[in-house]
């Protein structure tokens, strides 16, 4: 039985009623008096010099209030990582992909803004372009950025132990190559924002983002406004999954146009522009060798990655590091070598997406493990259990598994799926497969170098003491962070959840790095807990002083105050409160002093009742180059079993059943944890079976719509058997850690291992469409 009153339950989300009734406002739902509408001119060519931009006709068009280009915007370089700031708001000398931003307009309505874009005349000199990452690396390939010869955006070379020697000493070395496809995050809400300047020159940006803090800093830098004069407010956000983790040309254009017109400006991306902005999953090519001993012990891993980054860096440096570092676990290795290269091509930039950098390489690795197990005659579950890490293990690249229920996850999915009665016993055309994975609970370092707190939180009590309001900069993007913080605050203060409110996603309230790297439950959670503890301490001190008792004898639970664990003799306090409360219609009663009475008395003594909390991780990781990427205070982990039916005549795959176990430390809210698991599996299933952003020979996206770029529908997803493993993470608030991204890690390889089990065919390229599987089965028959 849990000792918790609020945590570890299935409490309904705080925002669900607003969302179920259409009251919840998203960025595109906002309107302001006098608001103008912006639109952005984007390059129709993949690679071209800009010879001249003539905006004179557009400026004279009726209804147009402003036209801006690089001339007005300036040429401040920005990006995600300061080490690779390679974008300017508008292209000035050349464009690098179909969709590169050139100019923006503000008009009285959206149709006028669109019409005016056609009147901007741009003279181009088309340049040879390159769309394939392997071609881009060749001698003589078109150069996309002068500063990066050979189109080499970033390179990583890491080695732990002597990999060649370790491989040479192995009984078996298996090899595998794997190629995924560019995926789109396909959140249902396209980016939108409204920018407004007040008369003192302060900018407020209402925007659909995962990271108000980083947007504030980037917009301030690019538009050269002091950071303190930029306020970013996140309304409800209709999904992010990674690509909303950085400041966009949409936000900066709206802000610039608002500055030029003195009016609020709204811009919303069309669905096509969402595909063009992209910043979603890279295409990865993986080449891997795994060396094992006869007894199934894994010894050494050689891992090579090439990433198609598109035209700009975005999150790409972190991505190319993650593809290596996230294979350090959850299996023990004696040696690991990683060589990663991220290459520029004339396509929209790729960035972070759920399971950042790890998903494709995890897919390759978990297939390789099955290949080794088969050759050695081991069951895939047994092979994994033989090599699994447990709590307290350190990976070879120095990631500290301070809690790790990996073994428990594997055993749970094995048992719930009845693996042992199925593996090797299914008829041809039916298959079962499994895989594991792990992910960070928040990046160990901010994306810019700083000793900043990663999260600060303020909790304020209402003057009557009855309501606690959590003020945080963290970003509720659908994952449920507002509810999580409310539950942590309620538990810590000892009050019911309905007495807690949350105001979030506003850079004026507090510092928070935002919703990426699955960090908020752990990091914002810590800060929330600390703020609540501080507030609780202040109240206890006032009560103790009046009662003449030790503050440590006072506790709060279910909205009442306990003295030495019981109601205590609090008559003096209640008399004080009743005297204070004269004339009200709700005099306090009951055998316990209520939290509300106590908090009101504390207010009378101390003034505003405010608690503050903060969190930053301790120094983490090794001292090698790139050691920061992959570090985290804690790691969540997942195991999955997938069962499929393959139509051997057509290659059609039906996913019949998925069993998923995830170790989230402590499930603050069990329903929300399951929701993250289901959503991760759904995204993984789509990427595995059919999602692919396609381009034509001139670099234009061929399928920039949710009709042609297919994501899973309700008919594609099976029900998932969901198992929560709670390992109690020592570095997490109340033992909690991530669930948002770790759960996607095993999905692709578990499906592909099941497909192999059903067909005997190893798939080395995604998506595993019926056509690809059919061709692979035919090729196998010919062998």
């Amino acid at each position, binding site marked *: 039985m849990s000792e918790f009153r609020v945590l570890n339950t*299935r409490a*309904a*989300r705080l*925002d*669900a*009623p*607003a*969302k*179920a*009734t*259409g*009251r*919840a*406002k*998203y960025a*595109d*739902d906002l*309107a302001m008096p006098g608001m103008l509408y912006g639109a952005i001119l984007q390059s129709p060519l993949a690679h071209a010099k800009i010879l001249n931009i003539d905006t004179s006709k557009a400026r004279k068009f009726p209804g147009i209030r402003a036209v801006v280009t690089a001339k007005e915007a300036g040429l401040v370089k920005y990006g995600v990582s300061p080490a690779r700031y390679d974008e300017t708001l508008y292209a000035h000398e050349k464009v690098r992909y179909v969709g590169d931003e050139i100019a923006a307009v503000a008009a009285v309505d959206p149709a006028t803004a669109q019409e005016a874009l056609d009147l901007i005349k741009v003279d181009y000199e088309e340049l040879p372009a390159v769309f394939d990452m392997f071609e881009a690396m060749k001698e003589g390939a078109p150069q996309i950025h002068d500063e990066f010869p050979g189109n080499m955006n970033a390179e990583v070379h890491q080695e732990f132990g002597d990999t060649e020697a370790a491989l040479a000493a192995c009984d078996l070395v298996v090899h595998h190559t794997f190629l995924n496809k560019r995926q789109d*995050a*396909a*959140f*249902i*809400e*396209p980016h939108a924002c409204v920018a407004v300047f007040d008369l003192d020159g302060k900018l407020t940006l209402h925007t659909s983002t995962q990271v108000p803090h980083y947007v504030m800093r980037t917009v301030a830098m690019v538009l050269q406004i002091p950071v303190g004069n930029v306020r970013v407010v996140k309304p*409800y*956000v*209709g*999904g992010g*999954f990674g690509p909303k983790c950085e400041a966009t040309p949409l936000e900066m254009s709206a802000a610039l146009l608002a500055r030029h017109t003195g009016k609020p400006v709204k811009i*919303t991306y*069309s*669905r096509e522009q969402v595909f063009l902005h992209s910043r979603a999953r890279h295409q990865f090519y993986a080449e891997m060798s795994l060396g094992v001993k006869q007894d199934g012990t894994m010894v050494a891993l050689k891992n090579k990655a090439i990433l198609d980054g598109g035209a700009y860096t975005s999150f790409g440096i972190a991505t190319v590091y993650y593809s290596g570092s996230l294979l350090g676990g959850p299996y023990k290795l004696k040696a690991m070598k990683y060589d990663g290269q991220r290459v520029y091509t004339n396509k929209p930039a790729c960035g972070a997406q759920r399971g950042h950098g790890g998903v494709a390489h995890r897919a390759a690795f978990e297939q390789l493990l099955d290949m080794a197990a088969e050759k050695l005659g081991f069951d895939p579950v047994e092979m994994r259990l033989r090599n699994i890490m447990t709590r307290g293990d350190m990976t070879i690249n120095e990631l500290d598994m301070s809690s790790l229920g990996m073994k428990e996850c594997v055993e749970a999915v094995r048992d719930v799926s009845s693996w042992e009665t199925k593996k090797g016993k299914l008829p041809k055309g039916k298959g079962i497969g499994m895989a594991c994975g792990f992910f960070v609970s928040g990046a160990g370092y901010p994306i810019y170098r700083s000793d900043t707190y990663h999260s600060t939180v303020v909790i304020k009590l209402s003057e009557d003491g009855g309501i606690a309001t959590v003020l945080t900069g963290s970003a509720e*993007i*659908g*994952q*449920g962070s507002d509810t999580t913080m409310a539950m942590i605050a309620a538990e810590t203060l000892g009050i019911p959840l309905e007495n807690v409110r949350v105001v979030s996603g506003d850079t004026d309230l507090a510092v928070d790095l935002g919703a990426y790297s699955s960090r908020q439950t752990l990091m914002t959670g810590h800060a929330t807990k600390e703020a609540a503890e501080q507030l609780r301490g202040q109240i206890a001190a006032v009560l103790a002083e009046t009662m003449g008792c030790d503050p440590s004898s006072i506790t709060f639970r279910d909205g009442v105050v306990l003295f030495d664990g019981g109601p205590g003799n609090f008559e003096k306090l209640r008399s004080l409160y009743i005297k204070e409360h004269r004339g009200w219609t709700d005099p306090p009663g009951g055998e316990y002093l209520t939290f509300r009475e106590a908090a009101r008395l504390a207010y009378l003594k101390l003034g505003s009742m405010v608690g503050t909390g903060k969190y930053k991780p301790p120094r983490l990781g090794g001292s090698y180059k790139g050691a920061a990427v992959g570090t985290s205070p804690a790691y969540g982990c997942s195991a999955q079993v997938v069962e499929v039916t393959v139509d051997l005549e057509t290659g059609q795959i039906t996913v019949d059943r998925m069993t998923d176990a995830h170790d989230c430390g402590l499930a603050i809210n069990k*329903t*929300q944890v*399951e*929701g993250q698991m*289901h*959503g991760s*599996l*759904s*995204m993984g299933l789509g990427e595995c079976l059919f999602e692919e952003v396609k381009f034509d020979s001139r670099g234009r996206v061929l399928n920039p*719509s*949710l*009709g042609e770029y297919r*994501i*899973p*529908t*309700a*008919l594609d*997803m099976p*029900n*998932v*058997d*969901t*198992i*929560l493993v709670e390992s109690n993470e020592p570095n997490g608030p109340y033992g909690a850690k991530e669930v948002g991204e770790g759960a996607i890690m095993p999905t692709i390889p578990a499906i592909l291992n099941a497909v192999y089990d059903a067909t005997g065919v190893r798939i080395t390229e995604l998506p595993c469409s019926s056509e690809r599987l059919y061709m692979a089965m035919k090729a196998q028959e010919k062998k």
Partner: protein
Amino acid sequence: MKRIITLTVNGEPVEGAVEPNRTLLSFLREDLGLTGAKHGCGLGDCGACTVILDGKPVNSCLVLAVQADGREVLTIEGLADNGKLHPIQEAFIETGAIQCGFCSPGMILSAKALLDESPKPTETEIRTAISGNLCRCTGYQKIVEAILAAAGTAQGKEVS
């Protein structure tokens, strides 16, 4: 050239002057301030703009405002009855069927249209009925559970 339309929206008579190329979605969102219907794609792919037109769920981004002339529209804002939530809304909240919430209004209205037609649907019927409403957050499982619960046909499946 604008045209005058008269229709019933959430039980109230509404009059509007619209260009012939205005969509019903744009009319609801911009002229009536009913922003519960969402603009997700503009092509009828995602279902976020679903409203109920004369009892049938439609993608309001594919319906012209003039086509709604003389007809009856129900949006998510009209589903609760004098502040009392509809059982489908209650079930979505209780079951955890809502994450980012952007698909929820359309999803709930597709569910309502289904349950009006077929009060005790099977799981397959539910999945088919909402297959035009895309959700990227939930994997659909809790949405299906919510609709089953609202129909009173929940399997009562408790997951640990």
